[in-house]
């Protein structure tokens, strides 16, 4: 490593850092990872509660939401249409930008990349710290929108213009402005983070850690970082224009001044589709990491896994139009977007088959991380398949803007990204915090979550095809929807239970944090570098950075007496000499 002595000295100086430099303005990638994790989990509570509010309104329209009486005083807790719009808008915004991205890309990006590559830290520790605090500020700005007069943004997480561009249309003034500012700030923060990740992956790998010896989760985070770097600036430019339209009186998206509302949709989805892969790619990497460990087999098709992620990264730029099939588009263009969208399912399918190939014939142990990873794979398949439905224009014209889309979103983002996040939390908890989680509570969290997740979101396919539009205030207003209202009630009950199922997770998390069993260095007998550092790692490794001798998934290797051959373990002398003759 090109670790100059001065840098090393700076690191060993860590012991003397005060409280603030250790826990708050820390430049240590592991502490920053924990900070991102706590931020994401906290925001998840808010986002989840907003979702339950939305569900309550859909099941029992215009009845008082329990617990909201104190907040919505004028209506005694009954949601008004404007409040309802605000709730679903902020639910999606928070979940996407402040839960999934901070946990998957922020926390696990920070934690895994240096530790799994054998680096002492990120390429730019200071920039890393700045990136967290910028994102944190963005989160604060986003939350502050709840307290301004006029309420928070209410034009959907997609904020289509001109609804979002003219304050009078939604009656929201500063809420939407703060939404724009927050996402702008978040864009800057994620740019810092992604540049850091990319540079670290390219330049900071330990000796012997070739690109194609990197664990797949690092591959996925690397590609995610590239997507982040190139996609988010487009949103950043879009929200800047939107903010100028709202505050300075420009007319980018306002037809009255020669602007073009459809332009927003193009900018948004040009960012938006890569964004959904930003949400899912790290989870794909996490699953690729966990499956081999718990079935003691090498990953099936390592190179295919890496290349299919690269293919997804390329293709995700040319499919964005599938979000705009009914927005007014040249039919030929719609046709091409339909074809590219179907093509992008191919690399996803390659990955799925490789996961199945990994499982095939493995000695599977159903530990909690593994269960969550398996849930990821199976739920992603359902979400991917509904994606194919919607990719075909004739079908999408019918189901667009219905609950079918909502079902799709949640199968990929909850079933995919959030289960991936849970898997990662359970899997890396011993390394993150030095303690094991409680397996009983883990099961108590997983099984109800998996069950109620499906009970919540699967029926949405049915009511979606039955015609229920998304983002409607009161389904009972439409005669043709009344006959399926029982589904809405059912879904809301399931959603409430899904929310309750998270309690064991919270208990488990905090209990294990303070009182969990002390974690050994390599509790899962895994092969990747982070398990060669003490738990929790300090300065990552002692005096010497490990050297990498092989690929990351040597499980049940015939070369080793154990059933795994860690990347850092020096090969026995005889074997390579023999092999070199070929």
């Amino acid at each position, binding site marked *: 490593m*090109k670790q100059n002595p001065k840098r090393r000295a700076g690191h060993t100086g860590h012991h003397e850092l005060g409280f603030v430099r250790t826990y708050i303005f820390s430049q240590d990638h592991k502490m920053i990872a924990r900070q991102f994790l706590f931020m994401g989990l906290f925001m998840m509570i808010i986002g989840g509660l907003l979702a339950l509010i939305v569900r309550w309104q859909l099941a029992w329209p215009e009845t008082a939401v329990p617990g909201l009486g104190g907040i919505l005083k004028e209506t005694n807790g009954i949601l008004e249409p404007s409040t309802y719009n605000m709730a679903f808008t902020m639910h999606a915004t928070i979940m996407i930008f402040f839960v999934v991205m901070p946990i998957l890309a922020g926390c696990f990006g920070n934690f895994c990349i240096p530790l799994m590559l054998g680096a002492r830290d990120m390429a730019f520790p200071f920039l890393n710290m700045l990136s967290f605090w910028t994102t944190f500020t963005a989160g604060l700005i986003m939350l502050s929108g709840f307290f301004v007069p006029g309420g928070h943004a209410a034009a959907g997480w997609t904020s289509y213009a001109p609804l979002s561009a003219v304050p009078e249309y939604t009656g929201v003034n500063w809420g939407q402005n703060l939404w724009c500012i927050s996402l702008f700030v978040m864009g800057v923060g994620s740019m810092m983070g992604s540049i850091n990740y990319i540079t670290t992956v390219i330049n900071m790998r330990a000796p012997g850690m070739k690109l194609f010896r990197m664990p797949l989760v690092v591959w996925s985070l690397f590609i995610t970082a590239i997507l982040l770097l190139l996609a988010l600036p487009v949103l950043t430019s879009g929200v800047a224009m939107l903010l100028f339209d709202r505050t300075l009186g420009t007319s980018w998206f306002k037809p009255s*001044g*020669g602007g073009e509302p459809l332009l927003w949709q193009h900018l948004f989805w040009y960012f938006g589709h890569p964004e959904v892969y930003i949400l899912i790619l790290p989870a794909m990497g996490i699953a690729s990491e966990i499956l081999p460990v718990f079935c003691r087999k090498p990953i099936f098709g390592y190179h295919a896994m890496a290349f299919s992620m690269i293919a997804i990264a390329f293709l995700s730029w040319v499919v964005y139009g599938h979000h705009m099939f009914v927005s007014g588009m040249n039919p030929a263009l719609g046709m091409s977007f339909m074809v590219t969208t179907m093509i992008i399912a191919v690399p996803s399918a390659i990955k799925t088959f490789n996961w199945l190939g990994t499982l095939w*014939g493995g000695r599977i142990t159903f530990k909690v991380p593994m269960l969550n990873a398996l849930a990821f794979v199976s739920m992603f398949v359902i979400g991917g398949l509904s994606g194919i439905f919607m990719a075909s224009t004739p079908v999408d014209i019918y189901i667009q803007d219905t609950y079918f889309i909502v079902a799709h979103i949640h199968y990929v983002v909850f079933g995919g990204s959030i289960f991936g996040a849970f898997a990662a939390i359970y899997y890396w908890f011993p390394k993150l915090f030095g303690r094991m989680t409680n397996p009983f509570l883990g099961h108590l969290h997983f099984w109800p979550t998996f069950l109620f997740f499906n009970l919540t979101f699967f029926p949405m396919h049915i009511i979606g095809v039955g015609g229920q539009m998304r983002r409607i205030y009161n389904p009972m207003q439409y005669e043709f929807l009344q006959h399926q209202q029982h589904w809405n009630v059912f879904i809301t009950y399931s959603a409430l239970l899904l929310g309750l199922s998270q309690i064991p997770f919270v208990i488990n998390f905090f209990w294990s944090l303070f009182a969990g069993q002390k974690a050994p260095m390599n509790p899962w007998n895994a092969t990747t570098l982070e398990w060669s550092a003490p738990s929790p790692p300090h300065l990552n490794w002692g005096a010497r950075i490990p050297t990498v001798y092989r690929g990351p998934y040597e499980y049940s290797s015939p070369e080793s007496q154990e059933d795994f051959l860690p990347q850092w373990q020096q090969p026995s002398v005889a074997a390579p000499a023999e092999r070199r003759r070929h």
Partner: protein
Amino acid sequence: MAFATVLEAPPRRRPVVRRRNGYLPPPPPPTGGGDGPERDPEPRRPFLDNARLATLFLIGGEIMFFGGLVVAFFVLRIAAPVWPPPDQPRLPVGVTGVNTLVLLSSSVLMIGAVRALARKQPGEVVRRLAWAGALGLVFLAVQGYEWARLVGFGLTVSSGAYGATFYTLIGVHGVHVLGALVWLAVVLMHAALGRYADGPTAGLRACAIYWHFIVALWPILYVAVYLL
């Protein structure tokens, strides 16, 4: 000797077909994902230092950011029936053209500064950096003056798509020039303190790359917004 090698039977592998988990291991070398058989890890030498690499990626992101703005500009401009709108003031093509040359020459000075760095002439480095920065400041000042005049003529951000696109694009570029100037000032300070004489020079080189990017962006915007 060579003949003997050919005749020699291929080295026999240990028959290691141990069945585990009902999984038959592939013939060695097992590739659980990896680079094949070569096993001697060697220290890697990165082809670019961290700072310059990161700057290149920063530029990648910036290109997407400006790409969004420029594409949006063209969408509005092409949709407009007449451009520029007849009742709006024209943009100062001539002055800005000269200003473009000012900015471009600052880039030349920047190249000179990096050359001087390579030739180990610290005084020259500081002088050229300072001049490059000064030209950047001149550029900004002229831009600001022209803006003030345009506002006086009645072109504002709210004068339809014409004003909106003009002020947004040019303003965003101006903010970037300002940011690059701050960076340049920091580098200049380091250079004046002699930091680059013995220490690593990546900071200065990275700043130079970013400066060239900001400068190179300008002619594109000039042609798109002023000339077309």
